[in-house]
């Protein structure tokens, strides 16, 4: 059995909440499969007060072996962490010490990975991720940090992270199936961050023909007008799906804000509309050259079927199978 120490730093508890939403396996079954004991966890541990501080000291000193250190939330660089969660020492210092003693350190959520929401705007308190500050290496532990098993901090961002990403990453580490080559340029596992949120979005047909929603609750693509960053967001949200596999951001009718990105949230302003120069969005889909985008999107719009053109700006199917007629008026050619 391995020891897992879960520390909540400057956070909202959202990663813990997301983890409770795990299905197949639910959380306790997952812990059983992972064969880990929770040394500390906001819900599943049983230490209070001085006992907690003693536990942290033992972990830092190596007296209690930490196989997996999981951190939820950012840490403050410029001011001492004002929490007394562990009395007597700023939490950032405990994390530094325990990370050196742990086999692996895992940053769960965008705040722990990159600073995230806690580091947005002017960031007066100097919130940072564990090994990145936004998209720059460094952070609390420094670019050269390696756990005892030789790995940098494994980042599992997302606001929140999908429970599968958290459990799947822990599983891969426990099974010795995750090495540095399995991580991308921001130290995220390819397995979960190697796709785009755009993949398997049910609005993809609208995207292809640039049939765009004009307002929220419309069925059309959210990219052109309503601020969707799904074509930039490295995650598998629309394939994996959330909440008992029933939803995702774009399935919920609101824009993906690319919350797995190191520059979330401020690089994705405005959140709810698409910044454009003339007709052209300023942030084009990942890897798509501007000239091609302009050419193809112009052609797609011309080729857009009437069914999509009408449904894109309606909250319900305005064009239904048998009532539909094709452009030549022949009911047999209906779509």
């Amino acid at each position, binding site marked *: 059995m391995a020891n897992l120490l879960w520390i909540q730093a*400057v*956070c*909202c*508890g*959202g990663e813990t*909440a*997301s983890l*409770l*939403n795990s*299905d*197949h396996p*639910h959380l*306790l*079954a997952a812990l059983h499969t992972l064969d880990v004991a*929770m040394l500390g966890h*906001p*819900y*599943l*541990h*049983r*230490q*209070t*007060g001085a*006992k*907690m501080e003693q536990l942290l000291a033992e972990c830092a000193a190596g007296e209690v072996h930490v196989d997996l250190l999981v951190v939820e939330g950012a840490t403050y660089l410029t001011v001492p962490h*004002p*929490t*007394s*969660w*562990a*009395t007597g020492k700023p939490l950032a210092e405990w994390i530094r010490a325990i990370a050196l003693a742990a086999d692996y350190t895992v940053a769960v959520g965008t705040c722990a990975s990159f600073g995230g*929401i806690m580091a947005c*705007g002017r960031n*007066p*308190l100097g919130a940072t991720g564990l090994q990145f500050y936004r998209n720059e290496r460094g952070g609390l532990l420094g670019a050269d940090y390696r756990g005892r098993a030789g790995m940098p901090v494994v980042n599992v961002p997302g*606001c*929140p992270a999908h429970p599968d990403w958290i459990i799947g990453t822990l599983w891969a580490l426990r099974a010795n199936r995750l090495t540095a080559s399995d991580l991308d340029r921001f130290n995220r596992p390819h397995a979960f961050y190697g796709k785009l949120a755009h993949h398997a979005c049910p609005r993809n047909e609208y995207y292809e023909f640039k049939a765009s929603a004009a307002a*929220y*609750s419309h069925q059309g693509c959210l990219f052109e007008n309503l601020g969707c960053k799904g074509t930039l967001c490295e995650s598998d949200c629309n394939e994996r*799906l*959330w*909440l*008992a*596999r*029933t*939803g*995702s*951001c774009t*399935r*919920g*009718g*609101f*824009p993906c804000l690319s*919350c797995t990105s190191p520059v979330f*949230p401020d690089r994705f*302003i*405005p*959140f709810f509309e698409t910044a454009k120069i003339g007709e052209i969005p300023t942030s084009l889909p990942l890897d798509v050259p501007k000239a091609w985008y302009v050419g193809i999107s112009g052609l797609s719009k011309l080729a857009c079927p009437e069914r999509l053109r009408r449904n894109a700006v309606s*909250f*319900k199917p305005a064009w239904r199978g048998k009532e539909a007629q094709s452009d030549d008026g022949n009911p047999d050619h209906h779509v």
Partner: protein
Amino acid sequence: MVTRTITFSPFSRLEGDLQVNVEVQGGQIASAHASGTLYRGFELMLRGRDPMDAIVITCRVCGQCGLAHSAAASAAIRSLAGISMPPNASVAVNVMMAIETVLSHLTHFYLSFAPDLVEPPCADKAMERFLPPGGRSISRALRAREDILGILGLLAGKWPNTLALQPGGTTRPVDASEIRRAHGMLGEFTEFVRDQVIGCEPDRWLALRTAADLDRWLGEGSHAGSDVGLLVALALERGLDKIGMWPARFLSSGGWPDSGGRMLTRPGFYDGHPAEMDPARIAEHVKYSWYDPSEGGVPPFDGESEPAPERTEAYSWTKAPRYAGQPAEVGPLARLVNGADPFVMDLLAKYGPSAFVREMARLHETIRLLGEIGPWLDELDPEEPFCRETPRVESGSGIGLVEAPRGTLGHWMRVEGGRIRNYQIITPTGWNLSPRDSEGTPGPLEAALVGTPVSDPDRPAAVSHVVKSFDPCLFCTVH
């Protein structure tokens, strides 16, 4: 008499960082100070931003009730823009808020409150169910979540941190087949509640009108063996009906409005008798909070949140909200008292505003809300719209008051030149765990802890029961 000072920090199985300092005389708490210790600065983060950013940012105040925060932010923008939502959206918001509340209450019960009742030595049956991490009831409760989360997924896409609640309505229309599917998932979840939580049909539970009804219920069938039956026995055995009381006043903004504006639970301020609730009577004090000082109580629209950690008389990052100058308790008990729920009113009359009644009100509300979700789903009309457009507003002010799982949540927003000039948030736990105000009057928890027995400082069971009966969320409190 010897006075001992004891610090409890951190509390286990609690949302966020709470420190409680108590003075003990003759084995009882003589005075208590509650401190929220994690500062993040959300209100300052919002200054200068687009008003719509508040929906994205404030839901990140709290991982467990972020939907309520985005509902409050949307409501504030709605009031700023002077618009309303279509009826479908009001109903969809109710369903989503009810699900968030049911999940929050049950998470609290199974992962936070019940485990404290089974610290060994304790009846084997109770330990086997409630002892973390592997207690059988805890495990079943975690597995049952997916049934009701699925409905949230259909309506909200993702959670925590959905953006489906916009000022003009909800972003996710549903069709008839999805409503059908939601009913199916609700049915599965209700089965879990029936078999595990209360051991009877929800209608049987909802027929309870008095404390004597509860006694009769316990004697019937296998009710005493349900998780709630077990809770009642353990709680009374441990005297939870005798701790956690204070001269309670109850505040509620009214929850779950229908499209006609009627509420499932009425707004009000209950101080021994019901009275209207007027948001203009809410003010915040910072005399004992680490912020730049101000005189007396400040209305939220004028509130400031400049941190001042060097202030020595301060002891919390939580401000002290007051209604008509008085501390007030919010949450399920406050909602049901203001809503004149007969069962809860009778429990209150018999057991007082104790830890036991607070917990029972939370469980009772869970069953009541669960019963509303089905009829609400049937009110959704797939042929009618879910969302209207929100006009941009360059200047003005807006207020959003909602009932979050833990109680009344308010967002106050002032906009100038199309940008947020000031944003103030008053959270449920801000009310319940507030520090002393300018007059030195303690907050509800601080008052409720007085008289609580403390025998072993290393195992502060009674203190923990009182604290957790308020279901504190320290993430929300200090934002």
